[in-house]
């Protein structure tokens, strides 16, 4: 009988200090990927399409069992085939624009602090800093429909914030992660927009600087990611 109590007591004590698999020194690679493609075939107009991808790759290392840090690289690319109808002296002219019309690249550094609930799951949270460059080109017909206008936008964004997530261990090597909260409490972005109309020399250059400080957070649309230990 005494033995049983002893075992129960041992269980209670040990359950409060679950022996976790050693994470210290372990390296991991994590990523999310999205690819999209759409195609429209209309009877009256020529076919148009849209395509693009977005890859986020992170490389991190556990400094201790509850602390990790690492780098994040993200790239995105977008392209399309579009048709624009303009009228010159009442005659319709179709212009086809085909090719890559946008790309983005970003680099960031993150620090994560973990709380392991049990052997399978836990939460993490920590600060991150990010720098991102985006470039895009869009077209639209002018308001009178006589010409095609072009907008080129370059944007540089610097931000610092906090992010938090959940993890679930599928196996020793594979984890599934989900974002639960995001915050960009400091951000600065600078963008340069240049618009021009094809048949004229008129251009408009617009320079915008935005900055903000906002100690707030939001719950994002939950995004899942996978993590592989190396």
């Amino acid at each position, binding site marked *: 009988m005494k033995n049983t109590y002893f075992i129960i007591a041992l269980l209670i004590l040990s359950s409060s200090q679950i022996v976790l698999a050693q994470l210290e020194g372990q390296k991991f690679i994590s990523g999310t990927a999205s690819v999209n493609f759409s195609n429209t075939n209309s009877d009256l107009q020529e076919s148009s399409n849209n395509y693009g991808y977005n890859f986020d790759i992170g490389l991190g290392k556990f400094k201790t069992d509850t602390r990790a840090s690492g780098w994040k690289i993200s790239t995105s690319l977008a392209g399309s085939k579009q048709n624009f109808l303009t009228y010159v002296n009442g005659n319709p002219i179709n212009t086809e624009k085909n090719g890559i019309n946008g790309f983005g690249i970003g680099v960031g550094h993150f620090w994560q602090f973990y709380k392991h609930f049990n052997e399978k799951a836990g939460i993490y949270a920590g600060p991150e800093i990010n720098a991102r460059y985006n470039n895009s080109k869009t077209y639209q017909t002018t308001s009178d429909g006589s010409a095609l206008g072009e907008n080129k936008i370059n944007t540089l964004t610097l931000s610092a914030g906090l992010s938090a997530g959940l993890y679930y261990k599928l196996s020793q090597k594979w984890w599934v992660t989900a974002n639960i909260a995001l915050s960009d409490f400091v951000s600065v972005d600078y963008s340069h927009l240049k618009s021009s109309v094809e048949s004229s020399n008129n251009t*408009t250059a617009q320079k915008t600087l935005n900055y903000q400080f906002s100690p707030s*957070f*939001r719950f994002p*649309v939950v995004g899942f990611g996978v993590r592989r230990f190396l």
Partner: protein
Amino acid sequence: MKKTLLFGIVSLLWLSLPVKAQLEKGTKYVAATINFRGTHQAIDYTPSVSANNSKYDAFNLNPSFQYGKFVKENRMIGIGFGTSMAFSKNQSSYAGQDFVYKGNNIAYNLSPYIRHYKSLSPKWAIFLNSSLSLSYIHLRYSSNDEVTKTDGYAAGVYLTPGISYWITPRFALETDLNFLSLSAGYNHMPTSKNVFFNSIVTTNLTSYFAVRASWYLQKN
């Protein structure tokens, strides 16, 4: 052996139960938060025939402070003071004539409140804030030195839950959960009057939660 174990388990339970000295009668409470954002934009037209270069600047600043005192355990009475400021300036020229448009809008907000806390653990607590909000709104527009001033006021009652997280025994971070709030009030401006009643219960969690820095100052 049994007794020892029982005693041990009970004492363990006691340890894990929250002991919240911060929420006792007499504790003073000070909290503050601030957010700001700005935009500066310049538009250049080439060649500059009829329309010339134009500029747009905007700046928003929203500081707020709270002061309170616990009148009994888990119950605080306090007052909040905040301002919302929005400044904008638009400069442009057309056909050789310059246009300058300025807007300076300020709202002063005073809100006495009663707050009930329920502690969940030594580090976490939830609270329910019932407040009366009184605002004075001052709008000033100028278009090429022609000034228009408008004054108005608003009053409302708000019931908002929130969460506190203690980083140290004296310092905590707090946020109001606006997606569960109830409010009713009245807005009065010279050209418009409106009565509003809002009950926000939503599962849309993507909204923003402003975080407040708060200090719980005990007497001893």
